């Protein structure tokens, strides 16, 4: 009884004797516990078993000077805290490397203590890998300002530094710098989507300012692409803006799409442009993030036949004849509505760029602001679709005539 109390008191007050180890003894004891391999063996293992997780436990400044492709960089100090976000499976083979092969042994021991059973430390580290003439790369690094600016993204496991770099390298084309294009441009820019193309032929009018938040009072009369560029730069100087002060037609759309855009956000205001964008995106295999609004109602979907989904023509094979679209009878839109729909388009865009989540492919989200309700309709690929089916009847771009002046 007394002995028990004494023991617990000892451990509580830290009086119990602890074996003292020198640095070298600590490393030696880790070496006996953690398996080591040469850089040649590591390379062979990575090639033979692509499932192997390669961990780079060096500090970010060291990683910045070069690293092995496909390695996950986790600084030694964060290893235990982050490893489960990367891999929970204790049986997955893991190879750890640092600069010279010492920190990786200590890191390996920590992972073993967490139950990772298949951990190997690469002898000689990155230095030995480079000396062996094996391939390595210098990874694009986020600046310290960028790490702060995008910190709320980076802390999400779905995004992280890699996802943020992906966004910074992305090229997204926005069609329309109006009601939908305004929130889209702002949130894409804020998210650090590195290159934004903005297509809009119009100049800013006072009647735009009730909802087109890219533009300011003093911008009246200024081309919308210029005003948009100013607003985007003011928000985030990381973003490069490419301006197209043009009305999209069959003459110019392919020239523009072929300038390296990987995704189109359709926020235009008329049917002829929507069909043109749809057809051109199908021809080029680009996803088309669609948003449209009318009065108190909005629609959002992702048209991406390449991802197995339908295109806009699967949904509506033909545009309404001029004057016949219900939306031509009268316009008008509540100002915050494009804010909702344009922001949804941004969420879908970011998900697509990162390859995360379930995109709005094959689904139409329909928003009714008066009822404050979202409804989801199933969309299917039309096997008879004139554009994206196996036997398309439309193989060239069509310039439909203007549908109604009220919509512009």
């Amino acid at each position, binding site marked *: 009884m007394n002995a028990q109390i004494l023991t617990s008191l000892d451990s509580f007050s830290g009086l119990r004797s602890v074996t003292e180890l020198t640095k070298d003894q600590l490393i030696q004891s880790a070496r006996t516990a953690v398996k080591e391999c040469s850089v040649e063996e590591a390379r062979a293992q990575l090639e033979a078993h692509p499932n192997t997780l390669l961990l780079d436990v060096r500090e970010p400044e060291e990683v910045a000077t070069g690293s092995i492709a496909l390695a996950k960089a986790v600084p030694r100090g964060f290893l235990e805290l982050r490893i489960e976000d990367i891999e929970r499976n204790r049986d997955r083979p893991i190879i750890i490397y640092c600069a010279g092969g010492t920190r990786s042994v200590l890191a390996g021991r920590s992972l073993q203590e967490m139950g990772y059973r298949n951990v190997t430390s690469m002898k000689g580290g990155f230095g030995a890998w480079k000396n062996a003439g094996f391939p390595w790369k210098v990874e694009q690094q986020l600046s310290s300002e960028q790490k702060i600016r995008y910190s709320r993204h980076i802390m999400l496991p779905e995004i992280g530094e890699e996802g943020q770099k992906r966004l910074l390298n992305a090229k997204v084309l926005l069609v329309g710098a109006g009601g939908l294009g305004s929130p889209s441009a702002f949130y894409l820019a804020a998210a650090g989507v590195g290159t934004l193309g903005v297509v809009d032929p119009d100049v800013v009018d006072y009647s735009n300012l009730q909802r087109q938040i890219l533009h300011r009072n003093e911008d009246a009369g200024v081309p919308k692409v210029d005003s948009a560029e100013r607003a985007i730069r003011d928000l985030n100087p990381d973003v490069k803006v490419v301006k197209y002060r043009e009305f999209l037609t069959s003459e110019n759309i392919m020239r523009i799409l072929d300038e390296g855009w990987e995704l189109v956000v359709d926020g235009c205001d008329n049917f002829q442009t929507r069909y043109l964008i749809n057809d051109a995106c199908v021809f080029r295999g680009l996803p088309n993030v669609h948003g449209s609004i009318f009065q108190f*109602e909005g629609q959002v979907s992702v048209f991406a036949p390449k991802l197995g989904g339908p295109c806009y023509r699967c949904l509506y094979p033909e545009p309404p004849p001029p004057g016949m*679209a*219900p939306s031509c009878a009268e316009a008008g839109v509540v100002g915050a509505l494009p804010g909702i729909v344009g922001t949804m388009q941004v969420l879908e865009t970011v998900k697509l760029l990162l390859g995360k989540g379930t995109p709005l492919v094959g689904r139409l989200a329909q928003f009714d602001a008066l009822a404050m309700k979202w409804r989801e309709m199933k969309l299917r690929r039309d096997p008879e679709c004139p554009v994206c089916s196996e036997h398309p009847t439309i193989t060239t771009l069509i310039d439909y005539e203007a549908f109604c002046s009220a919509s512009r």
Partner: protein
Amino acid sequence: MAITVRIPTSLRKFAAGNDRVEVEGSTVKDVLDALSKAHPEIGARILDEAGVPKRFVNIYYKDEDIRFLKNVETEVETGSELSIVPAIAGGF
């Protein structure tokens, strides 16, 4: 058999401002015919001469496009819902 038809914003003014209309019918065709009779201006905008939805209007029964069911011959259950979803272009 009463079916609820959801009217999109753009057509509500032709249905006395209502966002839903109740009509009788046992197939989509019955329902659309009854809707046209009650609100001819809606019928004129969404249906062709044969009473089939125009190509820029989709009809959803229980959130499924009727074109992928039995089109206007799709049978509808009492108390269920039909939605009219027209193409809208605005982004302005």
